[in-house]
């Protein structure tokens, strides 16, 4: 009971707050621009050469306002926004009219979550473990070489790194498909499909694991270099505990816990990276959907993607918070 009150309840409140603030920001920030998406669409239609009489324009405007949730006063629009969030109904998509946005999202979201989860867990684990070992043996030459390589990779943004891998491994040395994965309905789940998925997801996942892992590597290395100098490590070593045991059981384990908290803070940015990488490799996730939505001016779709992303990130942070007591006995036994 105390665990619930001291640990769980604040997390749940935070969960609700993050979603509330996020959705509110998504509602208000675009309105600060003073631009009207409805007028924009009409301008686009007219620019394409269609001549509309004033009555048709007014009807069109009404319909578009309804579809965009721009009807009524600001407060009414705000309520509409929340109704849409709760029902996950964002109206029809424009570039695949009349498919509802919700249906598109349902097809693409699992792919993004799969990539997001796999690459985040892998990059976190690999980055921290390798970073920890490199930090413990920071005097060795292999550790210094690794450090120098990472100094070059670290500042490269997701899109550029993706393009480099794509050029190298899909064109120069065509190991992987350049066009990405195509998904269709009614695919039979067989070995061939699984292999195709693995082949198509490899490069996007590799990009994310390297770029994410590099950040964890650097943080962990610094942490371990500090933990290493603490008395208990010295004591264990003098006491004749095997080096390997000292590294993994004492040093790494101690330095890894704060990194879980760091992960929770970074998830928003990690997720943005996933969307960007999906665009590079035409991976069939929300990033690709976003690309298509933006290039075709599909405001409803972009809105749906943004809202769903906020929900995904907030949920991921909550899950991480719920997992944390399993890793840290101090919280379990408080």
């Amino acid at each position, binding site marked *: 009971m105390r665990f619930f009150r001291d640990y769980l309840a604040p997390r749940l409140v935070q969960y609700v707050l*993050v979603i509330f*603030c*996020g959705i509110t*920001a*998504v509602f208000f*920030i*675009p309105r*600060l*621009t003073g*631009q009207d*998406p409805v007028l*924009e669409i009409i301008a686009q239609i007219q620019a394409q050469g269609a001549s509309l009489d004033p009555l048709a324009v007014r009807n069109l405007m009404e319909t578009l306002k309804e579809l965009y949730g721009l009807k009524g006063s600001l407060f009414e629009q705000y309520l509409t926004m929340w109704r849409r969030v709760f029902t996950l109904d964002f109206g029809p998509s424009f570039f695949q009219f009349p498919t509802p946005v919700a249906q598109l999202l349902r097809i693409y979201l699992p792919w993004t979550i799969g990539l997001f989860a796999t690459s985040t867990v892998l990059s976190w684990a690999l980055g921290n473990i390798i970073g920890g070992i490199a930090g413990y043996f920071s*005097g060795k030459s292999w550790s210094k070489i690794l450090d120098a390589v990472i*100094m*070059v990779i*670290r*500042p*490269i*943004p*997701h*899109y*550029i790194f993706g*393009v*480099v891998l*794509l*050029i190298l491994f899909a*064109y120069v040395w065509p190991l992987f498909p*350049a066009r990405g994965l195509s998904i269709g309905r009614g695919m039979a789940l067989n070995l061939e499909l699984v292999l195709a998925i693995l082949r198509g997801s490899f490069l996007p996942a590799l990009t994310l694991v390297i770029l994410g892992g590099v950040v964890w590597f650097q943080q962990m290395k610094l942490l371990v*270099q500090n933990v290493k100098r603490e008395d208990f490590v010295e004591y264990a070593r003098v006491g004749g505990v095997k080096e390997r045991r000292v590294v993994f059981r004492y040093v790494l384990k101690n330095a890894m816990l704060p990194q879980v908290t760091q992960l929770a*803070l970074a998830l*928003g*940015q990690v*997720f*943005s990276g996933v*969307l*960007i990488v999906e*665009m590079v490799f035409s991976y069939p996730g929300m990033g690709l959907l*976003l*690309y298509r939505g*933006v*290039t075709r*001016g599909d*405001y409803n779709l*972009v*809105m749906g*993607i*943004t809202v769903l*992303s*906020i929900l995904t*990130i*907030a949920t991921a*942070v909550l899950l991480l918070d719920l997992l944390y007591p399993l890793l840290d006995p101090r919280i379990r036994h408080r």
Partner: protein
Amino acid sequence: MEALRELFRDYRFAVGFVIFLFLVVLAFLSFASPYDPIRQLQVPRDRPPSRAHILGTNSKGQDVFWEATFAIRNSLIIALIAGLVSRIVAILVGFVAGYRGGTLDRVLMGLADGLLVIPLFLILVMVAMLLRGSMTLVNTGLLLAFFGWAWDARTIRSQILSLREREFTKTSVLSGNGTMSLVIREYLPFTTPLIFSTLINNIAWAIGMEIVLAILGLVRLEIPTLGTTLQWAITYQAMLLGHWWWISTPVVLTILLLVALYWLSVSVSEYLDPRMRIQRIGARS
């Protein structure tokens, strides 16, 4: 000057500085360009590098090298606007929140945290979508500035928090100095190095973000930047057609620019953190 000599002893600072200088020279070369940056079909199309066009020409009939000089210049302009304007916001928010504390601090930091948790990139895209027609260099820079201050405001605030607790703050207040003079004369010099290193990081972020916005077609595509150059190369299937000189130019330039900036910033912030400096000197002996 002493500090500069010390910094140059770090190979990362020296290398970063030389690369950055090289790119700045390239950017200034754009003023001497024989070609117009926007007009198409000025030279034969799709030629590989040769003596007349050292980086070849692209499918739009432009010289890749001279386009690239404009691209670096414009990307740097966007990044500088974004970096400098968001520094002003970050400094104001950080100083006010750190020095005043209390409710104001909580509200401002709540705002900053809010901006950090939501996927900023998506909100940036939504806003850019609405402003699409008017995304010139200046406006793109301002838009990035609007979203780029949150993390650095936090960093600056924590520095101010620790400065506020120091002895000299009390001395200054008790000797009758006004808040403004305390903040500007005493705190600003202390935080300048920190602000400088956040500026470099922010510039790197802005350059990366501009590329994504350009790929999405959300900036004015006719103005050459690192992002739009890459976007055109991808649109014209430069990868598939093997026009490597076209697509690799913005990629290589971006990597050089960002690596240079990153090395400068790491070197400066290590120089500022005496603990790290001791470790470095210790590791050397």
